[in-house]
């Protein structure tokens, strides 16, 4: 892999009516590129990156668009059954709780694929990392489609040896500096999720309809919420084993389909690793902002 001084910079766009402008002294100063670069950084983040010796290279992205089969979206693997408790005559149905594993694995794979593509694009231009990564996930057409779009700014560390796999983080600028100052380095972005499905059955008709009175634990509802959250958090702990997953955004979505409740819990965050022991930081200074 090329050293930062020999990076394959993107060529400058032609300038109408004349030759490309020559680099000025400021542009060729250490920490700046002799060629135009692309970045999604704000100006303060850009300045902080330069001060850290991080050379912005290019805006890189990873994209994935896929289809989720109807089977994956709705089929659940049963984990637990709730036998009838209504004590009434007539037809009875068994309530049960399950995981919609195929749907979850489809989304996790989509995110991993997009992340890999982002990192490959960064590695191809000699980047050591990608900062300020943003994640967009959506169902662009219907619930059976998934779209994951990651984009961020590839950066190279001046004088650092080449790496096979760049790191990636949602942080940039001074926030990234603070992370490193506290003893951590960025690893990668992680996305985990779990969808629990609860089919109500007679159990819920009894316990969930107030027929039993007040004060009874509605176990299927509690189990479904716990399953979705504990599996998603547990997966995140596995992904971040040996490190930490910070800045986690936790989303919980609940919907009703075909007399069943679907609860999805997803976690998206930056995996970081500790590289040096950091003592507790000094007491923060309380400030009063007169600007507002």
């Amino acid at each position, binding site marked *: 892999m090329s050293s930062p001084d020999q990076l394959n910079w993107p060529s400058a766009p032609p300038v109408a009516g004349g030759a490309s402008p020559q680099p000025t002294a400021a542009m060729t100063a250490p920490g700046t590129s002799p060629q135009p670069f692309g970045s999604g950084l704000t100006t303060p983040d850009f300045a902080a990156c330069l001060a*850290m010796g991080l050379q912005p290279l290019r805006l890189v992205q990873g994209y994935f668009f896929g289809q989720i089969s109807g089977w994956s979206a709705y089929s659940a693997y049963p984990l637990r059954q709730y036998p009838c408790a209504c004590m009434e005559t007539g037809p009875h149905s068994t309530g049960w709780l399950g995981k919609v594993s195929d749907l979850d694995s489809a989304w996790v794979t989509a995110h991993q694929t997009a992340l890999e593509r982002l990192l490959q694009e960064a590695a191809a231009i000699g980047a050591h*990392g990608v900062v300020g990564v943003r994640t967009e996930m959506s169902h662009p057409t219907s619930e059976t489609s998934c779209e994951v779009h990651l984009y961020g700014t590839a950066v190279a*560390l*001046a*004088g*650092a*040896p080449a790496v096979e796999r760049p790191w990636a983080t949602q942080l940039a600028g001074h*926030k990234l*500096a*603070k992370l*490193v*100052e*506290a003893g951590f*380095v*960025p*690893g990668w972005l992680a996305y985990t999720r779990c969808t629990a499905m609860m089919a109500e059955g007679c159990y819920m008709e009894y316990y*969930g309809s*107030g027929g*039993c*009175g*007040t*004060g*009874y*634990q*509605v176990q299927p*509802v509690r189990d479904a*919420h*716990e399953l979705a*959250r504990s599996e998603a*958090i547990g997966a*995140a*702990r596995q992904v*971040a*084993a*040996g490190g*930490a*997953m*910070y*800045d*986690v955004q*936790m989303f919980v979505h609940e919907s009703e389909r075909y007399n069943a409740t679907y609860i999805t819990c997803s976690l998206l*965050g930056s995996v970081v*690793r*500790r*590289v040096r*022991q*950091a*003592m*507790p*930081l*000094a*007491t*923060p*200074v*309380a*400030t*009063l*902002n*007169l*600007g507002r």
Partner: protein
Amino acid sequence: MVMEEQLKPPGPAAAAPGPPSSAGPLALGGPGHQEADLAELGRALSSGQSARSTGPGGVTSDLTLDEVLLLHSVGLEPAQVAFGVGSVSVAQGAWLWSSGEVADARQAFHQALDEAKEAVRASTRSAGGIGVVGVEVELRVSAHRVDVIVTGTAVRPFTSEDGRRHFNVNYRSPFICDLSARDFTVLTGAGWYPLELVAGACYVHAPRRSVGTAIGQAAQNVELENYTQTLYQAREAAMGQLQSQLAQAGGTGLVDAKIIDRPVHFAPHVVEFVVYGTAIKMLSERHSHPKIAVVVPLDDAVRTFEATSLRQ
């Protein structure tokens, strides 16, 4: 619930965090702060291969990086996202228009909250945590059940490589608080410590007006005193429960109280009044006032060109 005697004041080693030793790492802000050498930090990024393990399972935290650093300054670090769920049934007919309090709903709320808090504590203990900060309480009331979901980040004392623990307040049972990491840092810096998430809830039927009163007021702008009185009644009852839980937890005060005050969506004749907050207790001899530096920002918001204005 954390009882008063469970909380032990900090020992000698738990003095307010001071400036780091000269051999220590760089510090962010405060006394002893050294201006970070950003270039050095950049070089540290290339040393990622020598990362050490932080434990058998990964740490998860929904705190922002700023919040993590603030907690670090008082000797705590995040352990894992902790949550608890309580779902308790409410008897049929409890919401039918009657008079007075819907006692079943109040009972279900407290039972569901207690179950959720106990699950959060169990999860915190298993992660080696001493408490939970930044707790969010999700409350759902439906005709036949009350669901309470409590989510926050379990925190544990930061222990340095020499085995020194940097947060020495001993809780026998994990505390739960709805304070942000910033508020937690400010509070502990002033000598106060959180004990427990305490709550009060009351659901009260608004009494019907008589037919004659309703007809007589039909064309008037008048106060509906039945609703006003109902709200007062609900508030007084809920605050009374809150006060009782506060005393039971051994707290000397309550901060960050949040109030939910609304008609029940499926039974609008019932007023719901829920209040919850963090019970706190002062462990220092006296309250210490934080010294506040006045900052005049020079980075005013930049006026940006808006393309939409062209279409006007």
